[in-house]
């Protein structure tokens, strides 16, 4: 069966997404001709899609992959961490300052939350966004601080520790913010409130 227009268009897009593995994506797509119609064909195509998408994501989010050392530059991880921590830092700092009577930074948040329904939306979304941003910052900087090594006989995984001040600073700030937020959440959950 000859490939249709949609199939050729998809092949072009996926091959483009494949980057340095474009030939492999093309090779996997060419095998579609061998797959029988129906479920097997869809399964095969799904696998190729996930491969091309994974390659595109890797190229976009991890541009250092495939280069010498295969690790993100320390500065990149630190910058990424700082950007990711801006929102959680503002939120935690504003809330803490508000507790000691400096409400100017928390005022915009309080104003926004005053609108009916927004508090519920905030409570549903904020934990995921704020803790997610902290987790991303920690993940990126843990990745450059503890670099994985090679497997020896499939049993040992060597790990190199690289202590760079900027990455350690992001780790410390991210850890502090996570501890404050989780500590506060635990404190709230276990506080005795008489009826």
């Amino acid at each position, binding site marked *: 069966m*000859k*490939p249709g227009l949609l199939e050729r268009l998809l*092949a072009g897009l996926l091959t483009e997404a494949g980057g340095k*593995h474009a*030939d*492999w*994506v*093309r*090779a*996997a*797509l*060419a*095998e579609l*001709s*061998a*797959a029988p119609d129906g479920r097997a064909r869809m*399964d*095969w195509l*799904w*696998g*190729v899609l*996930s*491969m091309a998408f994974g390659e595109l994501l890797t190229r976009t989010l991890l541009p250092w992959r495939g280069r010498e050392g295969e690790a993100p530059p320390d500065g990149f991880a630190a910058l990424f961490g700082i950007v990711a921590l801006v929102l959680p830092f503002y939120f935690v700092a504003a809330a803490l300052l508000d507790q000691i009577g400096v409400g100017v930074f928390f005022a915009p948040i309080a104003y926004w939350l005053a609108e009916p329904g927004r508090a519920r939306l905030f409570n549903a979304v904020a934990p995921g966004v704020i803790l997610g941003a902290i987790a991303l910052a920690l993940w990126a900087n843990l990745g450059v601080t503890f670099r994985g090594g*090679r*497997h*020896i*006989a*499939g*049993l*040992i995984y060597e790990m190199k520790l690289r202590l760079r001040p900027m990455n350690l600073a992001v780790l410390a700030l991210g850890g502090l913010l996570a501890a404050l937020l989780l500590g506060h959440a635990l404190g709230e959950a276990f506080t005795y409130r008489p009826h």
Partner: protein
Amino acid sequence: MAEIRWTRQTRSLLAALTAGGDWRHGYDLSRETGLKSGTLYPLLIRLTERGWLETRWEDSPEPGRPPRHLYRLTAEGKAQALTAGRPPAAAPVLSRLGWT
């Protein structure tokens, strides 16, 4: 260069490549090993990058069809495939730890 991990999938792919002998198509390997394309091709890429696998393109006899990719173990790949069924040797690990 990516390390080869001796997973069940790697072993079954090497077994299929060894048993097949000559050039193999990706879909045939998938059917034989039960590996989906999303698992099979990353493995093929790693084996090729390690020099365990050689590849070539084969023109389709049917006009309008794209050429197909073929795979075959290199001499090094065959040697590695022979060890695939064996458990990892303990001695190098122990010596690495300074126990021997």
